[in-house]
């Protein structure tokens, strides 16, 4: 319904479609989209049907740049944003564009374009390359070193049984000089960082515990954490800090091992931006 500057003469056709396609952008392959496609072809035979390779290549390049820049804040990228800012008229080939962009990202940058949760229509970039010891000097020097704090919190959560109270987190962090109410030298507002920023980035889940007075919240792992790291890795981090073996915590070790086995089993529909799982 909205007339985009890149509409290239198809604005009329879009308005006649009745706006069904625009309002539900993710159904480009659904029944609404298919009907509108058929309608479009019937009404405007001059519409650019098959697009040239060059045009598609250009679109894919734009999409790759868009994804890389959107990833700067580590907030999951929504499909609607992709459609609105980059794809526009190429809605019907969006799955193809996403697939190509994902290939490009993997071959050139070593990043995987992953759907955060099945059917959530949000995407994140995950590194495929395992971090190397020697790169530690150069890694993560951009911005504040929040990953350290995040890893500590993740470790706490996992070792305490996958869920921890916010008050316990602060009891722990206070000993490291991080207070919920005091401004921190490096992190600024630590409470905001942990309970809002990390949650928005989907590293943590922040839920209210019912029937508590005063109100208390619990923290758990978020979906991004499961994609970027694993229970075994976090356990190894904790073990390394303690200078002990991960097996010294049998319950957690068993849990981590079980998760490793579950991951090793082939899964369907995971990490594929296209709707078809077996692409």
């Amino acid at each position: 319904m909205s007339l985009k500057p890149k509409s290239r003469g198809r604005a009329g056709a879009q308005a006649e479609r009745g706006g069904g396609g625009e309002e539900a952008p993710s159904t480009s392959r659904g029944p609404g989209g298919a009907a509108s496609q058929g309608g479009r072809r019937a009404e405007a035979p001059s519409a650019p049907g098959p697009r040239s390779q060059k045009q598609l290549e250009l679109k894919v390049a734009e999409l790759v740049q868009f994804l890389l820049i959107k990833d700067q804040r580590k907030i999951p990228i929504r499909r609607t944003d992709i459609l609105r800012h980059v794809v526009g008229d190429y809605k019907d080939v969006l799955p193809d564009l996403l697939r190509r962009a994902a290939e490009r990202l993997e071959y050139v940058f070593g990043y995987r374009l992953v759907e955060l949760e099945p059917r959530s229509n949000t995407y994140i970039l995950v590194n495929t390359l395992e971090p190397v010891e020697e790169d530690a000097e150069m890694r993560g020097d951009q911005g504040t070193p929040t990953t350290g704090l995040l890893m500590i919190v993740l470790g706490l959560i996992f070792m305490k049984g996958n869920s921890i109270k916010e008050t316990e987190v602060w009891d722990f962090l206070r000993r490291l000089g991080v207070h919920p109410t005091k401004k921190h030298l490096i992190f600024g507002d630590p409470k905001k960082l942990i309970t809002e920023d990390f949650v928005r980035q989907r590293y943590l889940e922040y839920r209210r515990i019912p029937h508590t007075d005063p109100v208390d919240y619990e923290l758990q792992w978020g979906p991004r954490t499961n994609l970027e790291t694993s229970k075994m890795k976090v356990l190894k981090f904790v073990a390394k800090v303690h200078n002990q073996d991960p097996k010294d915590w049998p319950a957690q070790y068993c849990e981590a091992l079980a998760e490793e086995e579950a991951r090793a089993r082939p899964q369907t529909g995971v990490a594929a931006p296209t709707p078809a799982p077996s692409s």
Partner: protein
Amino acid sequence: MAEEKDCLRGDVEMGEEPVVTITGGAYSGKQAAEKEPMKVEAAAGADACSEDLSCGDADIDPSLLELVDEEKCRSIRKQYRQLIYNVQQNRDDIVNTASESLTEALEEANVLFDAVSRTREAALDAQFLVLASDLGKEKAKQLNSDMSLFNQVAFCDFLLIFVGLNWMEDDGRDALSDCDDNIACSFWETVQKEATSWMLQAETFHFIFGSFKSETSARKPRLEHRKKVHRMEENGDMPTKLRKLDLSSNQEATEKEVERILGLLQTYFRKYPDTPVSYFEFVIDPNSFSRTVENIFYVSFIVRDGFARIRLDQDRLPILEPININHVGEGNDSSSHGRKQGVISLSLQDWKNIVATFEISEAMIRNSY
């Protein structure tokens, strides 16, 4: 009345055992449901019922009961509130698996409930039970985590050791809050380095020189180019004016030089009459090749104007001899001799060779400046 109370107590006892599994909310709902029939029965039994349908006794006159039990009820409520407050204050102790305080609190509530006859106290009892069940759930969770032997305090200390801040341990709690900013920074940086090696984070993408719009930069060079051209033209006006002045002065300078050199030559001839001077000795400046060329240039004027002449002597070397007035008489001869043109070319190497051959140590033509 006693029967109702008994069955109520029975309900409480049944509810108590599976405290861990039933959530507080559900349980209080159950209790409230149990109380409803009691309330209704009481209302039906008593004719002069007050607005709060809290009469438990169907047989006895409710107004009498209210007067008598008011004190008792108040004390029961007070005790309940005290119990709830205690439990909330000692939450940590209660949740600790080793302690029996939760069971004790429950037993105390049980005893209190025997005296409860009205809903106000019963509501407080329900509130207490919600609290107790929450604590019971936490206690059960505590059981799980105790098995895994994870000690938070130890984790904190180990973190400090890991970074290398062993000496901070003695300071007790809040070690990092009071210390140097640098130490805190280095602590978090070290932890960060370790943490990033366990995560597959995608590096954030930034343009090296920042992001920019490509359009404006294309225009700027053109403008600058134009400005530069303008400047050059403006500057160009100045030198041309000066050159005109210079040229005239240069011409004067040439004439002056020629006269000067002629003066020198004539002085020499007066000192040493009838002795022609070797051309090279006169002209060449052993210290400066360019001065030599200038001297040749000026001497050529002298020769052209007829104040001296160049001849080749018996060694076939050029010499410079003056033309006196006496010779002017023979000027007809000189004019009959005609003028001859000669081109003298002198390269740097020739000049050096001549300086060496003739052993010229200093210039005969002194500099005027």
